[in-house]
C-alpha cells in the first residue's frame, strides 16, 4: 500500500488510490452481503456501506506502529488498515487462513501485526483498551497513537464516558473516531441522544473535538492527520466527530422497517462518499470502470481463496484459550 505524502496535502494520485480502496471495500461488502444471502457465510454480518471514506481517510493517515480498535462493523477498517481481502474473506468463511484464524468472524477481525487490535462486538467495549494501549505508548516514550472507532450509539454507554475522561485526564496519545452514522442499530439519533452535536460529549471532558464530513475522504484524512499530530506531540487525545451515513441496514438481511425508503433513497443519491470523490476527481467513466473491474477481480479471488481455505478441526476450539 502506497504511503501518502506526510504534510497532510494529497496529490490527485493519492485520492485516486483512496477511491480505488473505497471501491474495493464497497465491492467487498456487497459480495459479502450476496454470499451471506446465498447461505455461505455463518454468523452475524454488519456492513458499513456508505462509511468507506471514514475507514480509508483515517487508516491512510496513520503511521507505521499506530494501532486501531474496531467495532462490529469492521470490514472496512480492517481492509483499510492493511489486512488483505483474502485474509478478511477467509475469516468470514471461518477458515484457518482468516485474519483471526477462524476464531473471530466478522465481528472479531484481528491483525495484530498490522496494528489491528481487534473488532469488538460489545458496543463501546474496545475504548478502554485503547486508552491503556496509549498509556503504554506514553510510558515507553514511543511515538505511537492508539485509535478507537465507534459509532454514535456507543456514546451512550459507560465505557465511552469513562474512557474519554481517563484519556484526557492522563493526556494519552489516543484518537477517538466517532462514526456518527445516525443509527444505533434501528434507533435514530434523536431517540437515543438528547443533544444534536455528539462532540459536546468530548468537550465536557476537556478534550479537543473536531467535526468532520465523513463522506469526504480528503477531509477525514486531513482531520485525522492533525489529530494524530496533536496526540503524538504529547498534547493529549482528540475526538473526531465524523458525520457519516449507513446506507444499509444494521445487519445483512435487516428489513429496515424503522426507516423511510424516501430518506434512504435520497441519502444514497446525495451522500454516497464514492460519488462525492468521483465527482471531485472528475474521473471519466472508463477509468472508473477499469478500477471497478480490477477491484471486483480482487474480491472474486478473495471468495475463491476463502472457499478453498482450510477448515479448522473441531477440536482446534480448545486451542488459544490460554497462553
Amino acid at each position: 500500500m502506497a504511503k501518502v505524502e506526510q504534510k497532510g496535502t494529497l496529490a490527485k494520485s493519492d485520492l485516486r488510490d483512496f477511491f480505488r480502496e473505497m471501491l474495493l471495500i464497497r465491492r467487498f461488502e456487497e459480495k459479502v452481503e450476496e454470499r451471506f444471502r446465498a447461505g455461505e457465510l455463518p454468523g452475524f454480518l454488519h456492513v458499513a456501506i456508505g462509511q468507506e471514506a471514514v475507514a480509508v481517510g483515517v487508516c491512510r493517515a496513520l503511521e507505521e506502529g499506530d494501532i486501531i480498535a474496531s467495532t462490529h462493523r469492521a470490514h472496512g477498517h480492517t481492509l483499510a488498515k492493511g489486512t488483505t481481502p483474502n485474509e478478511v474473506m477467509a475469516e468470514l468463511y471461518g477458515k484457518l487462513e482468516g485474519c483471526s484464524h477462524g476464531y473471530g468472524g466478522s465481528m472479531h477481525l484481528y491483525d495484530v501485526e498490522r496494528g489491528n487490535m481487534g473488532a469488538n462486538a460489545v458496543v463501546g467495549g474496545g475504548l478502554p483498551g485503547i486508552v491503556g494501549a496509549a498509556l503504554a505508548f506514553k510510558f515507553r516514550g514511543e511515538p505511537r497513537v492508539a485509535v478507537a472507532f465507534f459509532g454514535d450509539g456507543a456514546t451512550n454507554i459507560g465505557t465511552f464516558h469513562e474512557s474519554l475522561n481517563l484519556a484526557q485526564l492522563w493526556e494519552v496519545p489516543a484518537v477517538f473516531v466517532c462514526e456518527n452514522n445516525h443509527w444505533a442499530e434501528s434507533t435514530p439519533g434523536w431517540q437515543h441522544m438528547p443533544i444534536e452535536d455528539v462532540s459536546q460529549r468530548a468537550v465536557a471532558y476537556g478534550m479537543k473535538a473536531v467535526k468532520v464530513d465523513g463522506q469526504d475522504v480528503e477531509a477525514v484524512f486531513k482531520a485525522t492527520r492533525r489529530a494524530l499530530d496533536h496526540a503524538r506531540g504529547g498534547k493529549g487525545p482528540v475526538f473526531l466527530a465524523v458525520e457519516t451515513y449507513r446506507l444499509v441496514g444494521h445487519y445483512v438481511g435487516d428489513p429496515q422497517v424503522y426507516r423511510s425508503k424516501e430518506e434512504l433513497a435520497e441519502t444514497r443519491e446525495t451522500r454516497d462518499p464514492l460519488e462525492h470523490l468521483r465527482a471531485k476527481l472528475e474521473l471519466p467513466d472508463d477509468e472508473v470502470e477499469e478500477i471497478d473491474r480490477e477491484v471486483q477481480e480482487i474480491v472474486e479471488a478473495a471468495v475463491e481463496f476463502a472457499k478453498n481455505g482450510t477448515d479448522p478441526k473441531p477440536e482446534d476450539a480448545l486451542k488459544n484459550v490460554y497462553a
Partner: protein
Amino acid sequence: MPELSYREAVRDALSRAMREDDDVFVMGEDIAEMGGSMGVTQGMLDEFGPERVRNTPISEMALAGAAIGAAMQGMRPVAEIMYEDFLTLATEQIVNQAAKHRYMSGGQLTVPVTFRTQGGAGWSPGAQHAQQLEAWFVHIPGLKVVFASTPSDVRGLLWSSIYDDNPVVFFEHRTLYGLKEEVPDELEPIPLGRARVHREGEDVTVIATGRLVHEALAAAKEAEQDGVSVEVVDPRTLQPLDEDALISSVKKTNRCVVAHEAVTRMGFGAEVAAVVQYGAFDWLDAPIERVGARFTPLPFAPVMEEWVVPHANDVLAAIRRTLRRDGD
C-alpha cells in the same frame, strides 16, 4: 527470616516486580497517597512515583480496560479493584475482553494483566462490600483465578500471576491482611495450579480457600482432640485447579469436606465436589460435605452476619457428619 503480614507480603511482591521490571505498574482507586482502601500499596508512591502507582477515577470499566489495553501492548499492569463487589462494574471488560482477546484473535494476543481485589465478611460491611465472587470468574474460560490464604502464598502467587501471560483475577481476603508469618528473604514464586497441603491427616480431607483455610485448621485441631485426623488442602489457584492433589488426598482419607466463605449454592465447592466424586468415587466412604455461606445477601447486623458465613465450628460439624457415615 523476616516476618511479613499478608498485607506486606502483597506489597512486597508488587514492589519487587516493579523494581525489577519497568513493564509492571499498579493502578486503582485511592492507591497512591492513601495507599489503597486496605493500605496494601502504602509507601509505594514514594518509591515509584505517580506514573507507576497510578490513582484512577472511580471508573472500574475504564481502569480494568486500560489495564487490559496496556497488557496487550506487552506491559504487565496490576489493577486494583477496591472491593470484590466492584468487580461487577469491571466484569464486561474482564469477561468479554481480557478473557477473550487471545481466543478471538486466534492466538495473536496475550493479555498479561492481574486484577487484584479483596472482600470477605467479618467487619459488617453489609451486602455491597463483602461478597465472595470467585465462583463467577472460575466459570470463564481464558481467566485464571487465584485465592491466597497466607502471607507466603500471597507473595509467591501474586508474583506468578504478574508474570503469567494470561489475565488473572487475584482474590485477597480482608480479614487476613494482618496475619503474620515468617517468609524467606528470597521471594519464591509459587506456580499457578498447585495446591498446598497445610496439614496432613488420615480420616477426612478438608479442601478450603481463603479465610476458611484458617477455620479448617482450627477445626482440625478440635477434631484431633476426638482422635480424628484431618488433612487440610488449599487449592490456592482455583483456575486451573490442581485436581490431582485434591483427588489423591481424598483417596487417602476417604472423606471430603469442601469449605469456602462464598454462598454454598452453585459455589466453587460444588465444582470441587464434582471433581472429587468423579476422581475418587470408589474411595469415598461418605457423601462430600459442603460448607459455605447461607443463601442470602450479607446482612449488616453483626449477629446476622456471623450467623450467615461459616466458621470453624461449621467445618467441624461437617467433618463429624462425614464420620457418622463410617462403614466400620
